[in-house]
């Protein structure tokens, strides 16, 4: 079999590709008064790269800069470097700009997120059938977020609702429940991607990008703990949550700690009818990049087996970021059948996509 044929057979699904919408394009899609506001004042919520500089090629693959513009903004380059290069079956777009846009003043946040969704639809999804996308929502204004979910519910190319790890409250907070309910009603998972507004009220501020990036795993662990312990999965039994770019191997120890705590503190969480690990296993999914790399590679397979969730792991490249994982070389430490499910099968099942 040729490489091309093998690729066709496995039809990798990439669960984390970052498009970027240039400011001028975004402005062109904003209605007034938001366009003038955006062009004269801008936005208020600072994204993490503003204070944790990415000291690795500015955070990007060096070859991902188009001749004009920013990495992730050029569909042709994205095709060349990801979709065509690896025979990708589908790529899931995750536009990070909404992580902070979604925390702006409610109507403004809605307008910005809607402009992002329109740019994604017109500039990426319409011309490229191999791309699907996450839906940007003003997550801090749940009623408006619900409206945006309903607006796109008829477009099957929007395959999940996007949420930042750095929201203004813990993800199990009841204020977000309408978003979870609307996503579940539309048959869409909620994808939690690292980033958004940065908070360190418990742990203290780190000094370096290295720490900030390492903490992503803990951000996901805290998000999952909050969703499970505050009973969100009892309230929205159909909700599925994808934790993107936060690693995986912390999940088993987290489940051990949640179950150990719960077994002694059940009266504190009467809304939970079962052990926390049961909710976790039935509702949580992971993406691979950046996956932990033990010195002994077999420990990774062991850690995955301990979760009992290998069928809920999705391969991701994280294009165009510097720590891009190539579909050709990633996850080679895993047994073949497990790797194939992660590269392809699991994600097709989650997103109800047909393999090409």
């Amino acid at each position, binding site marked *: 079999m040729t490489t091309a044929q093998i690729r066709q057979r496995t039809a990798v699904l990439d669960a984390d590709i970052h498009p970027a919408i240039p400011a001028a394009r975004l402005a062109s899609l904003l209605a007034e008064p938001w366009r003038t506001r955006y062009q004269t004042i801008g936005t208020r919520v600072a994204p993490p790269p503003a204070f944790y500089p990415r000291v690795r090629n500015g955070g990007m693959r060096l070859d991902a800069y188009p001749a004009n513009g920013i990495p992730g903004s050029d569909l042709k380059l994205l095709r060349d470097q990801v979709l065509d290069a690896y025979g990708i079956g589908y790529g899931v777009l995750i536009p990070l700009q909404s992580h902070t846009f979604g925390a702006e003043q409610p109507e403004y946040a809605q307008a910005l997120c809607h402009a992002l969704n329109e740019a994604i639809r017109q500039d990426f999804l319409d011309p490229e059938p191999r791309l699907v996308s996450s839906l940007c929502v003003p997550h801090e204004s749940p009623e408006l977020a619900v409206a945006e979910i309903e607006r796109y519910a008829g477009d099957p190319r929007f395959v999940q609702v996007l949420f930042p790890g750095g929201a203004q409250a813990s993800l199990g907070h009841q204020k977000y429940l309408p978003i979870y309910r609307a996503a579940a009603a539309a048959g869409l998972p909620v994808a939690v991607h690292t980033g958004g507004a940065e908070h360190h009220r*418990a742990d203290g501020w780190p*000094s370096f990008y290295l720490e900030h990036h390492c903490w992503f795993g803990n951000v996901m662990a805290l998000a999952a703990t909050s969703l499970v312990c505050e009973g969100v999965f009892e309230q929205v039994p159909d909700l599925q949550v994808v934790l993107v770019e936060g690693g995986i191997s912390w999940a088993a*120890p987290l489940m051990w700690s949640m179950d150990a705590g719960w077994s*002694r503190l059940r009266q504190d969480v009467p809304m939970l009818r079962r052990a926390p690990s049961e909710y976790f296993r039935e509702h949580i999914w992971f993406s691979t990049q950046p996956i932990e790399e033990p010195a002994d590679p077999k420990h990774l397979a062991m850690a995955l087996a301990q979760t009992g969730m290998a069928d809920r792991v999705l391969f991701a490249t994280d294009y165009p970021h510097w720590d891009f994982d190539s579909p050709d070389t990633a996850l080679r430490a895993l047994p073949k059948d497990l790797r194939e499910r992660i590269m392809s099968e699991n994600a097709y099942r989650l997103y109800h996509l047909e393999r090409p």
Partner: protein
Amino acid sequence: MTEIAGKITDTDVHCAPASIETLFPFLDGYWRSYVTDANLKLSPTFGGAYPPGAPTSAKPEARAAGTFPPDNVEALRKQLFDTAGPSRAILNCTTSFDVSRNPYYETALTRAVNDWLRTEWLDRDDRLRASMVVPTTDVDAAVAEIERLGPDRRFVQVLLPVRGQDVRFGNKRFHPLLAAAARHDLVVGLHAWGKVASSPSPTGFLHTYLEDYLSNTQIVQAHVVSLIVEGVFIRFPALKICLAECGFSWLPSLLWRLDKEWRAVWREVPWLKEPPETYLYRHFRATTEPAHLPPGDEQLSQLLEMMRIPEFVMYASDYPHDHGDAAGRLLAALGEEDRARVLSGNAADFYR
């Protein structure tokens, strides 16, 4: 500490004054009137950390004794030492953890707690050692307290709360404190819970005690990473850190992630000469409680393969707190020699 053959060293035993008035002999007139005027009481839940009714807050024998944690050495003897207990115990008093944001009050209160520990506990039972508490909102005052009590060999540790520092403990702000501890060969103990003004999650207050309880195991990881990557073990090679009541089974995953990322963005922390894992096992230890273990023997042996538990973990009863019987299960899974290290050898090597 010298090892006593066949004996147990308990590295996390709690005591607390019964009331703020207990500390009055160790507070000056200004602070006594400050406390009285503000009608300050000690928090019955230790700032939400240990609600008295929570099953995790007290073992049955502690509950039966009425007052927990023990507020006098006689009670501790009866409850801990007389019942096939340890030959030595390190007292951790977290009474000052949740105090107000006034750094001068935190300084006065921590100093009073230390003097109370000395007078009412260390002077009365030579099996006891203690952690001194220091103000984290005034590093100069913390250094002064370490200098004052450092010569008293019965203090073996400087205890810091993991939650609610504005920056992580590896930050430059804390270097004088870490240097002073290292100078006196005092272990720096990072203990669960902390400033009640700061929420247990990065984003805010939570709605369940279960989440608060679990948050310590996440927060402590931030400090571990910070201490390693800020290079404090290169500046202060004698510095030792004990992670108390924060779990330990999260370690393999954290190290796999940190080692990988350090190899990629090392240029941000050029002073690190060895992989993070090397600093971790050289400078850190953790207490056994709470032990969050996998179900089943097979996964437990996998955990033992993934991390160096026999050298990393030190036995602690965490008396009077009750996290279940997992630590007993861990000890039972170890060979005789490893069990002895966890029960006393590691602590004997680690503490002065």
